[in-house]
């Protein structure tokens, strides 16, 4: 499979704040993620990980601050169509088959040959045999694979994953780890929230810890990263 050319893209959060009413979900978060980094976000439930990822996906509007996608030399790129997002929910229709789901989103995203792309991805997530089954009949792990396949449809330059290992069986985790490391090799940028240490969090090149909506730790050093990630559930 030949990936279409893409511009390596980072993410710059500048003083991002998000208030729900007067409750702060994020407080002045500034973070510069360079192209090709694989950042793991750790923190308690409600620390703002999900909100930060949803803002990066431009699903949620920040109350203040700005978000930009700088290219390799710092220039701002328009990467609107080149982000992929895996949420807590599967973001696919239970009443459609795995193949119909991927075809639907591939068509909406204007992908050249939707059938070929969907078929290739279904092969990658090892669901080719079940591609004509309704997602409703899938196990949690299989649904998560469809969800990840959906996020990869447009071969994103920036991939955002909200606790992607949730519900995956050991086999699925191995597959996800393999996919993520391949994306890192290809120079794609990955931001993910993690829940404790795993084969997935071990791939991170940088760990950021959020607490009550603020960045409280940010490191690229291996030992410190382990401390931040294993501390995740504390």
């Amino acid at each position, binding site marked *: 499979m030949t990936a279409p050319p893409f511009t390596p893209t980072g993410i710059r959060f500048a003083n991002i704040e998000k208030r729900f009413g007067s409750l702060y979900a994020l407080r002045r978060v500034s973070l510069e993620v360079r192209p090709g980094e694989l950042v793991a976000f750790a923190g308690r439930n409600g620390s703002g990980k999900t909100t930060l990822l949803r803002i990066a996906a431009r699903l949620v509007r920040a109350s203040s601050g700005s978000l930009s996608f700088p290219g390799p030399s710092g220039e701002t790129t328009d990467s609107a169509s080149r982000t992929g997002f895996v949420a807590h929910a599967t973001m696919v229709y*239970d009443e*459609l088959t795995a193949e119909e789901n991927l075809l639907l989103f591939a068509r909406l995203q204007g992908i050249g040959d939707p059938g070929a792309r969907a078929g290739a991805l279904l092969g990658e997530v090892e669901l080719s045999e079940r591609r004509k089954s309704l997602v409703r009949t899938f196990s949690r792990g299989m649904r998560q694979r469809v969800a990840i396949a959906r996020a990869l449809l447009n071969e994103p330059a920036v991939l955002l994953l909200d606790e992607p290992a949730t519900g995956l069986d050991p086999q699925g985790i191995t597959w996800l780890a393999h996919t993520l490391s391949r994306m890192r090799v290809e120079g794609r940028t990955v931001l993910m929230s993690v829940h404790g240490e795993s084969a997935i969090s071990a791939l991170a090149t940088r760990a950021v810890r959020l607490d009550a909506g603020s960045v409280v730790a940010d490191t690229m050093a291996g030992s410190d990263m382990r401390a931040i990630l294993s501390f995740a559930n504390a």
Partner: protein
Amino acid sequence: MAVLADTTVLLGKELRTEFRSRELLTTTVVFILVVVVLFSFTFDPSAGESRRFGPGLLWLSFLFAASLMLQPCFLREQNNDTLSALRLSVRDPFSIFLAKLSANTLFLLLTEVLMLPVFAILYNVHILGVFLQLVLVLFLGSLGVAIPGTAFSAISAQARMRELMLPLLLLPLLTPVLIASTEATRALLDANPVLRADWLGFLAGFDVVFLTALWLFGEYLLEE
């Protein structure tokens, strides 16, 4: 046109999911049937009386049925956060609304056309000679219900007591549709049927006003 291409794809999805389960269609048909039958006990449905009251209660039952049928329109998209997936994928969020309101208009029109003969038999009115004209009235009226109805379904999905909120938001707003559709239907069911172009024009105007509003403000209705 990217909007139309996306709308076609999304409409295909709406139709496929509905025709796979037929949940909305069957429940709506039964609901209208129940209301039409119950209404017939509230007066003496002779031909003359039916011509006076029939069109109004027919449209009232359509409006109530629609306010129930439109309920799951956006609620369904919340289950798996598929609305977010759509927002991330489409080029113009208006296509999401366009697809949904086309599907809703089609579902309403289908159930209404299905109920017309039942209504005609129960209420002793003649519809054969004016069937096509009636379908035209039904189409413009259903469109008028579906446009604000789809928009408000996105609003009520965010509220508590959403099952009650949608009818409360929608029904007062539909006063003009109720009046225009009822008058146009009444004229067609008259002993000397007339196609009331003025009311049809009014309905078309209503549709255009709210379609434009939806085009302008639709993207904000999808915010989370």
